[in-house]
């Protein structure tokens, strides 16, 4: 049950309007940022022309750029941003840990490392192979971190950071040992969207789409779980089943996002923090808001990655770290670090 359903009927009508309005505002913002992101780059296309290219394709140079390069890249950014933000929201809810997110808990690092190993062994060439390795890696990392960290938020974060550092160290060592086999590691070590729109990525994108839908379906039982296990059982939510399904969704979302763009930190931490207050304790709304705001954040970061260097591009993960830092500091000062 959502928080709105639980409250009195009078309050319900008063509170649901701003929530839906905010969602609408978020969608409008997402559209505007997407158009901007499609327009800005080495060859800029004015926003009006972008809209014309999207809805009235004429085959001019600008239109070809929009359709073949920029729009697919924007689509990737939207998918990855939504996946990471929702994965972050789910982890925070499930672990009751405001500091958790796939990046901080080492799940994306595990996925990136598994893809590195897979491609060095020649097994992760295709998109199916990469997706499988990414998911195996994120499952293994999540299981390890949860087994070691258990219930303590702090210990979970500590374990995740240790794991990230260890995997990064091992990967760097492997790269120095076998430079040829691990050449691709450069990509998997720092997340980027540059050039990724040229790869066939239908499978991971489909996995993200299905998982996002699953997250929406799960958000109601999760809401019941938020109230405590006994309450959830009384309300008829299968506690164990909901937990397992959520963990599966988290690993698939972060694994698929990493398979698309490499490890990107902070999106999953920042977005749920930002939307926590407007969502007012309702998991479905938190999930929806994250789904909209995650893409906005990643699109903005991706625009930054294209304009920050006079030559070439900065990997987008570097930009998300830079954007994510101040936002996280603000969130911590605003809400406190949660559990003391």
């Amino acid at each position, binding site marked *: 049950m959502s928080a709105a359903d639980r409250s009195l009927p009078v309050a319900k009508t008063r509170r649901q309007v701003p929530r839906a309005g905010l969602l609408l505002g978020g969608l409008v913002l997402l559209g505007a940022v997407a158009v901007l992101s499609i327009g800005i780059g080495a060859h800029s296309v004015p926003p009006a022309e972008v809209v014309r290219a999207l809805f009235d394709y004429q085959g001019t140079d600008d239109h070809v750029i929009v359709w073949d390069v920029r729009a697919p890249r924007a689509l990737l950014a939207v998918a990855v941003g939504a996946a990471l933000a929702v994965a972050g929201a789910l982890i925070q809810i499930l672990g009751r840990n405001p500091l958790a997110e796939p990046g901080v808990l080492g799940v994306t690092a595990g996925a990136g490392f598994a893809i590195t190993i897979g491609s060095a062994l020649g097994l992760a060439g295709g998109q199916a192979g990469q997706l499988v390795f990414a998911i195996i890696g994120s499952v293994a990392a999540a299981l390890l971190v949860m087994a070691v960290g258990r219930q303590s938020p702090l210990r979970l974060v500590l374990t995740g950071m240790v794991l990230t550092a260890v995997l990064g160290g091992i990967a760097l060592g492997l790269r120095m040992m076998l430079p040829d086999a691990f050449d691709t590691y450069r990509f998997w070590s720092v997340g980027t969207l540059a050039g990724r729109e040229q790869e066939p990525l239908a499978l991971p994108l489909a996995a993200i789409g299905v998982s996002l839908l699953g997250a929406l379906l799960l958000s109601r039982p999760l809401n019941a779980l938020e109230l405590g296990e006994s309450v959830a059982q009384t309300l008829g939510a299968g506690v164990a089943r909901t937990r397992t399904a959520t963990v599966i969704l988290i690993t698939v979302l972060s694994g698929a996002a990493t398979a698309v763009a490499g490890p990107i930190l902070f999106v999953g931490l920042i977005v749920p923090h930002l939307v926590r207050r407007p969502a007012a304790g309702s998991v479905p709304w938190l999930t929806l808001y994250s789904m909209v705001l995650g893409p906005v954040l990643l699109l903005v970061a991706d625009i930054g990655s294209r304009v920050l260097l006079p030559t070439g591009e900065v990997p987008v993960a570097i930009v998300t770290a830079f954007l*994510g830092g101040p936002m996280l500091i603000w969130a911590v000062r605003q809400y406190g670090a949660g559990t003391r």
Partner: protein
Amino acid sequence: MTALKPRAAHRATVISAAFVALILGLGLLGLCYGASWSSPGKVLAVLTGAEHSVVILEWRLPRVVAGLVFGAALGVAGAIFQNLTRNPLGSPDVIGLDAGAYTGVLFALTVLSGTSAQLATASVLGGLLVSAVVYLLSSGGAFSGLRLVVIGIAVNAMVTAINSWIVLRAELEVAIAAVGWSAGSLNGVDWADLWIPFAVIFVLLALMTSQARAMHQASLGDSLAVTTGVTLGRLRLLMVLIGVGCTAAVTSVTGPIAFIALAAPQIGRRLVGAAGTPLLPAALTGAVLLQGADLLAQALLAPVALPVGVVSTAIGGCYLIWQLTKEVRRA
């Protein structure tokens, strides 16, 4: 409470003695090991001046001494910050001091001429700047270690992003040198690089020893410390300066060596069985960790030498995970 019971005190003595023996052994091994093996007898003869060897005195000795001193300095810096924040995650490498010091180093390399003194100064300034930023951002309201750590992690991510951006913008030669450095490495260290950082570290460690008692009292709790006559504000500022100075002095020579500062105090604390985060075990563990990691870094892929940061991360990390698992099982 941090006061040791007789049995624990005995254990601390035994473990410290074992550490000293281990440090001497690892140091000797470091002097023997290289492209050609020198027998321990020859190394001792060279050290006592009976024989002369450029390889041992000019190549291996600075590296071994640097490994031990820097390891101890990182361990102490980690213990200081973990004590101040009362949080195992509040170590300099997590809250961005290493990254800030490294920004200073990158600035000295790309904008200035990059002499040893410039690197050390810029590195200390970078570390101080970041610690000031983290402190200011986390101040206001009641002090919370966890809040400081989270803000530190955020600042660390931002500063690391700036560092990557500087390297990407830099000219190719500088960029290649800086990338090799970004993992933290003792490769090619010689005496000329070491005088300034060593002098800084020794002064700071001496200062630290004189304040160890007050710091121990401070770790027992604010009110108790004030009752026993410790001026908390000044003590904390001094501790921060010492911790940042140690971290920056090391970073100016080796680049950011992750994980020694995080792992050494925690490992040392668990080995000694103390409740707080004592300094001496942290220093000794740091020295053992860094020197051991450097030996492995040289040996693993010989003749190619890995950056020591890679090995320190792998070893320290695995040990810490194992320790965390044990803690969970006991609880």
